[in-house]
């Protein structure tokens, strides 16, 4: 149904591009003007502000930057964020692929609903996501599960917000995959697991990797869905984004900027990695 829903991950390009070099015109007068306007707007909105973060974060030199990050509470927040992001990403790789597989290869009543629901975490406001999870796992949980103010709560909230990434990256690739090769493998006596491992999985690797990168970036940068459920206890459940905010509110903008620089770095590396993956997938055909 809506396999391409949430095409934010069309960052992937899905290897279908037919662009050849030399396609695309040089700039004429009108389009130069457009480019100028676009550049100014992007500079004012994105480039200058993000540059300001980096400049403020590294304003006291490497030692200042390092000191800010090795502040015990900040270091704990960064460690917690990165370790939770790795955990959540690992779960996503496996279960995201399973969900994509089931949505493409299986037929059952209610499949359309599941397909629609996958995108809910993407569209749902993060604070609402936090409240939603808190109502289920919070103080008066109907399941009698108490995950508020714990790391389990953080883990579940991050799982919730990162669900769509791997699923939506893998789904379109699975849809376009040629079934003939799998049938050939089956006729040659390969069992289903071998077919998946040797035939299907290698085709999915770029998509899984790209979805994974997006999920990891999202998990590292998440704020809204965590603020209610995590309780923001320093050394225990305070994540990097919350730490930035509390540093900034406690009149330590340089410290906040240093942590923000780290998160920004993760974001840029993620995008470059995805861009590299896309190029690689296109080259491989």
């Amino acid at each position: 149904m809506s396999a391409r829903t949430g095409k934010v991950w069309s960052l992937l390009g899905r290897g279908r591009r037919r662009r050849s070099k030399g396609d695309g015109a040089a700039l004429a007068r009108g389009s130069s003007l457009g480019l100028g306007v676009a550049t100014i707007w992007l500079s004012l909105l994105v480039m200058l502000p993000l540059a300001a973060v980096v400049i403020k974060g590294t304003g006291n030199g490497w030692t200042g930057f390092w000191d800010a990050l090795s502040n015990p509470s900040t270091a704990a927040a960064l460690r917690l964020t990165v370790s939770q992001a790795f955990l959540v990403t690992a779960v996503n790789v496996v279960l995201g692929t399973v969900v994509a597989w089931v949505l493409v290869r299986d037929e059952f009543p209610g499949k359309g609903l599941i397909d629609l629901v996958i995108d809910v975490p993407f569209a749902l406001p993060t604070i609402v996501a936090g409240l939603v999870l808190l109502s289920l796992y919070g103080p008066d949980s109907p399941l009698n599960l108490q995950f508020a103010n714990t790391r389990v709560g953080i883990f579940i909230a991050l799982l919730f917000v990162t669900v769509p990434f791997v699923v939506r990256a893998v789904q379109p690739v699975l849809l376009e995959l040629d079934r003939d090769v799998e049938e050939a493998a089956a006729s040659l006596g390969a069992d289903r697991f071998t077919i998946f491992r040797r035939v299907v999985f290698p085709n999915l690797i770029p998509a899984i990797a790209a979805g994974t990168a997006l999920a990891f970036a999202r998990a590292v940068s998440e704020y809204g869905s965590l603020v209610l459920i995590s309780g923001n206890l320093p050394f225990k459940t305070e994540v990097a984004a919350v730490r930035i905010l509390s540093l900034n509110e406690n009149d330590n903008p340089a410290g906040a900027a240093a942590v923000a620089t780290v998160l920004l770095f993760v974001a840029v590396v993620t995008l470059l990695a995805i861009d590299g993956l896309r190029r690689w997938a296109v080259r491989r055909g």
Partner: protein
Amino acid sequence: MQYLLRFVAVGYIGLLILVPLFVVAQKTFENGASKVWEALTDETMVHAFQVTAYAAAHAVVINTVFGVGVSILLVRYRFPGRRLLSLLVDLPLSVSPIVAGLALVFVYGRTGWFGPALDSLGYQVIFAFPGIVLATVFVSLPLVVREIVPVLEEIGTEQEQAATILGANAFQTFHRITLPSIKWAVAYGVVLALARSLGEFGAVKVVTAGGVAGRTQTVTSLVEQRYGEFDELSAYSASLVLAAASILCLVVITIIRPASDKKSSDKKK
């Protein structure tokens, strides 16, 4: 094996997403619908919805105009710095909203780079509406562009060139050839951007310092504040409206998507 996978997939999505949504709806209406209506018509609540709607409307319009223009630049032209431009457009998607908000404060805040200059001109950006709009535009920036770019790449330039050869000017070519073929992608991007704008929390919270109730407070900030004040009814009611809006956006997208897919597969024939 098939049933096991199906069970795992449905169970995972159901437990993680469907059940919690259901519980929120249930909790909201615990004390009856009239209480919910009372909470929703509260003066500061109505104002918060107005602020959110105002910011989202501005952000969507700005991002649509910008998105169409930048997509055409990125796909149809080759110029130095094109990849950098593309990276800058994508960046807001993976940057933490908190970092986004902080970045805007560093530049447009009272002590920021442009703050004093803007101040002397009588403009206040941070802690005011322009800041809310800037933050909202920032976080929803890539959504429209990323929808249009693949479609523009797919349709190629033949028809546009034909139109130009037949004497159409740039505006006519855009209006009669390019726009009709990307209109579904634009619509899709607009809905995505709208959903994102309505729900933005982190970046807006930083640029408004949580917002002043009845002035610069958005619905998402209000949810956090009310929950903190143990006014669960207001928090849940407002959340339910936001959730309904975002699910409505998703449904609209699911309806638009097949239409646009059909369109592009017709083109290929």
